[in-house]
């Protein structure tokens, strides 16, 4: 008798409730439906594995003969990432400040926040397509696309960070009769600067990743050579480019972490 009650106790504590069961069942049905809808089948998977093996075989040995193309693309990607990050950071500093609802009048903060939301709404590659139309092929289009993406990301997080600050320090500065610029400079910024640096290094990292991709739509950087190598079935050069990109991204992530550690202290 005693053992059954204790068993019941265990089962009620961790029982999966009805809603979860129904949800899991629905999810399962959806997976089967969607997989059939997009044409996922076993035969395709098996033939794909064959293709994959051939594909991997053609990647080796990596093609090291086109280092000048590789270097040109990589350096252009780095330029795009650096310039887009700097411009994005510089623009999102005032824009984020304007978007903070606790400091600014409602009309200004809503305008700024709408602007930031528009910047965030489209993927950087789609932005790059639009900028390629506007300013032509090349690094400028990629830079502008990533500037917009950076504003969308840093601007939003910075505005949110400012809204979370402690009012006490702001009031203390206000009590001294400081004008508004000094209030921001000494009451607000010291509280959020370390987080701002965190967002900025994260965005630099993310821009580095995306700057290798905007070239696919003609907006400069290593993405262009990568895409054309794919289209030429020049898989050994593809392999070289991919390994270089991955190395740069890993180094960039380590550097970003290091910078963050230095400035958080």
């Amino acid at each position: 008798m005693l053992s059954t009650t204790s068993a019941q106790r265990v089962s009620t504590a961790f029982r999966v409730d009805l809603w979860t069961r129904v949800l899991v069942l629905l999810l399962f049905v959806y997976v089967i439906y969607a997989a059939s809808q997009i044409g996922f089948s076993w035969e395709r998977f098996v033939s794909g594995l064959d293709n994959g093996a051939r594909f991997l075989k053609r990647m080796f040995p990596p093609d090291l003969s086109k280092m000048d193309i590789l270097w040109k693309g990589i350096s252009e990607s780095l330029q795009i990432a650096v310039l887009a990050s700097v411009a994005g950071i510089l623009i999102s500093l005032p824009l984020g400040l304007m978007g903070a609802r606790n400091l600014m009048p409602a009309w200004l903060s809503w305008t700024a926040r709408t602007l930031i939301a528009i910047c965030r709404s489209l993927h950087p590659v789609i932005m790059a397509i639009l900028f390629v139309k506007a300013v032509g092929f090349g690094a400028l289009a990629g830079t502008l696309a990533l500037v917009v993406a950076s504003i969308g990301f840093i601007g939003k997080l910075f505005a949110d960070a400012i809204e979370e600050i402690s009012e006490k320090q702001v009031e203390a500065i206000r009590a001294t009769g400081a004008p508004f610029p000094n209030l921001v400079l000494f009451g607000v910024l010291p509280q959020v600067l370390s987080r701002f640096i965190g967002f900025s290094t994260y965005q630099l990292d993310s821009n580095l990743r995306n700057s290798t991709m905007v070239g696919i739509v003609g907006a400069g950087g290593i993405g262009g050579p990568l895409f054309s190598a794919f289209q030429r079935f020049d898989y050994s050069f593809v392999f070289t480019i991919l390994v270089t990109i991955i190395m740069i991204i890993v180094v960039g992530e380590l550097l970003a972490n290091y910078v963050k550690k230095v400035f958080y202290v």
Partner: protein
Amino acid sequence: MSDAILAHPDGLLQQRIWQRHTTAQRLVRFAIWLVIALAIVQSLRTIEVIPEFLYDAPEQMGDMLQRMWPIDWPYYAVGVHAALVETMHIATLGTLLAIVLGIPFGLLVAGNLTRNKALNFIARVVLVSSRSVNSLVWALLFVAVFGPGAVAGTLAIAFRSIGFVGKLVGEAIEEMPRGPIEALQAAGASKASEIRYGYWPQLKPAFWSIVLLRWDINVRESAVLGIVGAGGIGMALDTSLNLFQWGRVAVVLIAIFAIVIVIEVVVTQVRRRVL
């Protein structure tokens, strides 16, 4: 005040000037600023920008908007709706696949759950390489392997998300309080029931928030995969762009914009209600 101290003839007082950073810290900071400045100058000097194109930009933008103007609404029913649904399938299936594939690696990478340095390291390498490759590159690879279409897109989304899900799940596990798990170990629970009754209940909120966040990102990303032929609404965008049918481009862009906003609202609501 500080002037007074500096001007004081007594040398002892001068040593008591407070400094926030040590000399080494200041040097490192200075070096970082220097590197940043050099990188900016170097990039500005060598980037290839044709100034005429820049002056021309507002005019070209206006031209583009003008061409988009009679927005080709009827095209939505013909070519966009099915592609939009396919995009949603790609994003959702990709996220689910990433959960299934990513959680084992998340469990393996957490040092407090898997007490084996070699396994931790292997899992970490898998997760880092998954994250380092952009979803567009994954899409290119899978298009080469499985042929153009939504299958390649789904796998691309899944493989890019494995690293994200695995890393965050691993971190959530490492930050967990040990109490409940030690209680289970003391009661002699097996590894499986340790995970089921000790780790999972603590992981659950973080897990759902990771899944929602990644799903949101995946919807945005799967909208562009079509540019490299991996299915979804990006293909409709690419076709319209290549044919210079700007009216159709406008419809596709509005559709992407709308779906992104809808997903964001849904995710915010679910987060508020469930988490």
